[in-house]
């Protein structure tokens, strides 16, 4: 495939997800309501608990990261979910495209939504709770957001693979996966508070490292030696695995007939 054809196919999915977003009644809730409710309620809790300002920053950063990951992850999962809901999935696999086109196209929209949410929550966090989430500077911020988006892509593609493998039954993963991240990636607490084996699992999640690196700028001693490097390393490995898993799932769906079953 030429570079142009690659770009056009990726763009096709980006346009589709954007159009669907504008037609979705829940768009508003996903993009604004839940994330804002999250930051406001957690922020108020930090007040009630009379947390130091660094601790407040710690918790709010986690909350914001979770929102960004979740919205971007859902958008990637939509690449398959929209078609599963409409029973139209066979048409896109009839076309000469690869799974990379659908995951990258929807990821672009996911990142755009993620950036919008991040900015809104950053303003809210600063205005309501005096937390400046962009204080660490452009470089650190970009690495942090990249970490969030990569984590989201990995989870989203993993969800796509599960749905392609198990059909609609696996839909719940799209929403459940964010809670797993919530539990494990140290959103509200440093992972050192987790029992050792669980902490070991947590340290395998890229987002854990990106949060750790970013929070270091707020005076929290890093739990890892090179969190950003490790984070990107892990993310690259998982991204490859997730991609291969989705390819295998599509191949399996072509042979089991699930691709047809999900289209009738």
């Amino acid at each position, binding site marked *: 495939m030429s570079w142009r054809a690659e770009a056009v196919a990726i*763009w*096709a999915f980006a346009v589709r997800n954007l*159009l669907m977003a504008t037609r979705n009644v829940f768009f508003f809730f996903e993009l604004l309501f839940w994330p804002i409710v999250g930051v406001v309620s957690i922020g108020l809790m930090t007040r009630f608990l009379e947390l130091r300002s660094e601790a407040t920053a710690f918790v709010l950063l986690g909350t914001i990261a979770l929102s960004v990951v979740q919205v971007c992850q859902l958008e990637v999962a939509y690449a398959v979910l*929209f078609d599963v809901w409409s029973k139209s999935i066979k048409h896109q*696999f009839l*076309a000469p495209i690869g799974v990379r*086109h659908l995951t990258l196209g929807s990821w672009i929209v996911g990142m755009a939504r993620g950036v919008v949410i991040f900015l809104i929550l950053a303003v809210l966090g600063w205005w309501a709770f005096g937390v400046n989430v962009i204080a660490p500077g452009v470089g650190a911020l970009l690495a942090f957001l990249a970490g969030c988006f990569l984590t989201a892509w990995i989870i989203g593609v993993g969800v796509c693979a599960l749905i392609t493998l198990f059909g609609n039954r696996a839909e719940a993963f799209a929403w459940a996966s964010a809670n797993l991240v919530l539990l494990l990636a140290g959103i509200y607490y440093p992972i050192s508070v987790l029992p050792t084996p669980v902490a070991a699992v947590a340290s395998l999640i890229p987002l854990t490292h990106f949060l750790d690196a970013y929070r270091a700028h707020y005076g929290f001693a890093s739990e890892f030696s090179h969190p950003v490097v490790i984070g990107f390393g892990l993310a690259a490995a998982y991204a490859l695995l997730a991609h291969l898993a989705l390819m295998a799932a599509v191949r399996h769906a*072509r042979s089991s*007939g699930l691709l047809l079953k999900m289209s009738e």
Partner: protein
Amino acid sequence: MLAIEARDVAKTFRAGWIRRRETVALRSVSLAVPRGAIVGVLGPNGAGKTTLLSIFATLLTPDRGSVTILGHDVVREAAALRRRLNMASGRPSFLWSLRVGEIVAFYGRLYGLHGATLARRVDELIETFELTTHRRAQYNELSTGLKQRLALAKALVNEPELLFLDEPTLGLDPDVSVRVRAHIRSLRRERGMTIVLTTHYMREAEELCDEIAFIKDGRILARGTADDLKRQIGLGDVIALRVEPPAPWLRNAPGVLRCADNDGWVRCTVDDAEKRLPELLRQLYAEGREVKSVQVKEPELEEVFVELAR
């Protein structure tokens, strides 16, 4: 030159993790489709028509057998093949909240179209299928007929050399079906497209197809032109007569394939009722016999399969 060459294709669907269920959809199907032909796969529900078409369209991998399409192996070279074929189903489904124009454009992009080329192609297709006034309508607001026309428009977005149509006139009003069939014929005439369609309407297959393959229980039971098949399996229109006194020579009359008596009716299967009925009546009158009632009936698909299954 063959567009499709399928040999001994078999497919069994397996479902269930604990209690395995197996459905044999195709047993051993061989089929050759010449380029530029319209070939019909005719059979009752559950015969394996959609399964066969899906294998040809690379949506389903066969368990056994080999399929070569436009010179490519359907499994190993699927990617190269996909840009040259397309498929539409009589029971289409697309993203509910996208608009007609957006749906065609989306699939156009998946085939690499962009910019002015894409816009032109979308306009053309929307015009050809008379969707202009519905261009901004969302998919879930469309009637069955409009959905089917959209499905055809989408299936032509990459100007395929090979087109698969799965029951293209399913559930359409007769006048709409006539238009769809006319369009299918024009695709072959004007663009030399090879078309494989499935149907369970005998007439449709007969009217459109150069060659028909009868499929039942995952097996092709008979193949050939409509006339070949009728001859092969002694299939034709049925003329039912009540004649006084009975005329035993009817079963040996020209064009009569076989005759059966019951309840005073003689049911003669003939090759062509329009041609044979006047001949028979003329002779019956000439002999001074009284023809009390006459009925002409096209063969039912059921009868076809009763014949074929024997």
